[in-house]
């Protein structure tokens, strides 16, 4: 039996593309640019409760047609994994890995489909850095993917919306890691940025692959794979920590607002909670006044 596939899960903007590039540089692992196959499969499994408590969805509908849940999941799994296996075979590699950042919004269904059949690598990044980076992504692309748009319609302040998206996705990923036990490994972007070799060694040990000398340099040097993913990472030939703790440059009031959303999850994931300052209305007004005065200075520059 061939080695199990590897599924990378991480909130968008958590360094998943960086990890994908490093994994794909291994001689036995093929990890293509984002395929959206697993989130597509998750949508196939979407179910909802209809009138009078009736549950509807493909599993229930096919159940009435004589296909039990295990049969449907097995077929869907073979369909989804088949693409990854074929891609790996074409690349001449023995096993596949898959990462699509927005899979993080479909963790429950992906777990239902993949549990017991894959190794999960769960990548976390500080929630305030994720929120700030999502804001940058939306600013650059000029729009929202559907998964993120749901949060923006619920919360009037975009950064608050992204923070809630991080809480939900990072929380779901950590729950998966906890319940999968030895089949899941949790790592941090901050560690990956600080020491990519050490983290990659841990990941390869976890998935049962040997270390391959030069893998980090090859992974960062390879920019020919065209596909979906974080475009910023392709411009980098080396990893650095410039993108770690960027949230500290957010205005203090914004940090405080985001801390209220993120701190419980930050602590759950082993991060230091963000220190907050209780800002009374008077402070907020003074900050506004000083901002106006500063604006005048900028005009005079």
């Amino acid at each position, binding site marked *: 039996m061939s080695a199990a596939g590897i599924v990378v899960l991480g909130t968008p903007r958590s360094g998943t593309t960086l990890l994908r590039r490093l994994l794909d540089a291994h001689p036995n692992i093929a990890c293509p640019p984002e395929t959206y196959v697993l989130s597509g499969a998750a949508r196939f499994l979407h179910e909802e409760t209809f009138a009078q408590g009736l549950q509807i969805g493909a599993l229930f509908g096919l159940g009435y047609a004589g296909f039990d849940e295990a049969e449907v999941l097995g077929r869907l799994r073979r369909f989804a994994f088949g693409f990854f296996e074929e891609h790996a075979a074409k690349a001449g590699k023995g096993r596949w890995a898959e990462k699509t950042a927005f899979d993080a919004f479909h963790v429950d269904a992906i777990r239902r489909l993949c549990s017991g059949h894959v190794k999960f690598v769960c990548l976390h990044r500080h929630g305030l850095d994720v929120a700030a980076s999502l804001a940058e992504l939306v600013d650059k692309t000029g729009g929202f993917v559907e998964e993120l748009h749901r949060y923006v319609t619920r919360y009037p302040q975009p950064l608050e919306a992204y923070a809630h998206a991080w809480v939900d996705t990072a929380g779901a990923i950590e729950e998966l890691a906890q319940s999968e036990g030895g089949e899941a490994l949790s790592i941090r972007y901050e560690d990956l940025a600080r020491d990519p070799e050490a983290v990659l060694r841990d990941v390869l040990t976890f998935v049962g692959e040997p270390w391959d000398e030069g893998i980090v340099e090859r992974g960062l040097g390879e920019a020919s794979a065209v596909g979906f993913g974080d475009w910023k990472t392709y411009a980098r030939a080396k990893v650095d920590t410039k993108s770690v703790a960027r949230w500290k440059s957010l205005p203090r009031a914004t940090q405080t607002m985001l801390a209220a959303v993120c701190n419980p999850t930050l602590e759950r994931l082993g991060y230091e909670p963000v220190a907050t300052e209780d800002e009374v209305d008077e402070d907020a007004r003074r900050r506004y006044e*000083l901002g106006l005065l500063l604006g005048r*200075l*900028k005009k005079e*520059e």
Partner: protein
Amino acid sequence: MALTRDALIQYLEDKARVDLSGVDDEAELFSSGLVDSFAMVDLLVFLEKHTGTKMGPEDITLENLDSVSRILAFAAEQTQ
């Protein structure tokens, strides 16, 4: 309370996340873009709380605020 150079540098590096490596005390902070507007407003709030004074429009000038040495001199004046 007098604002020390160490306290200001620590504030700029930790809270405003300004990279001051290779930057001397005379280097322009705001007009060079090293400190952005958001960080500058936070710095003004920090200065007001530290000196216990309220800044007026006449105080918010590049002469007072555009370098480490100018900020220290301005804060010293305010606390006299």
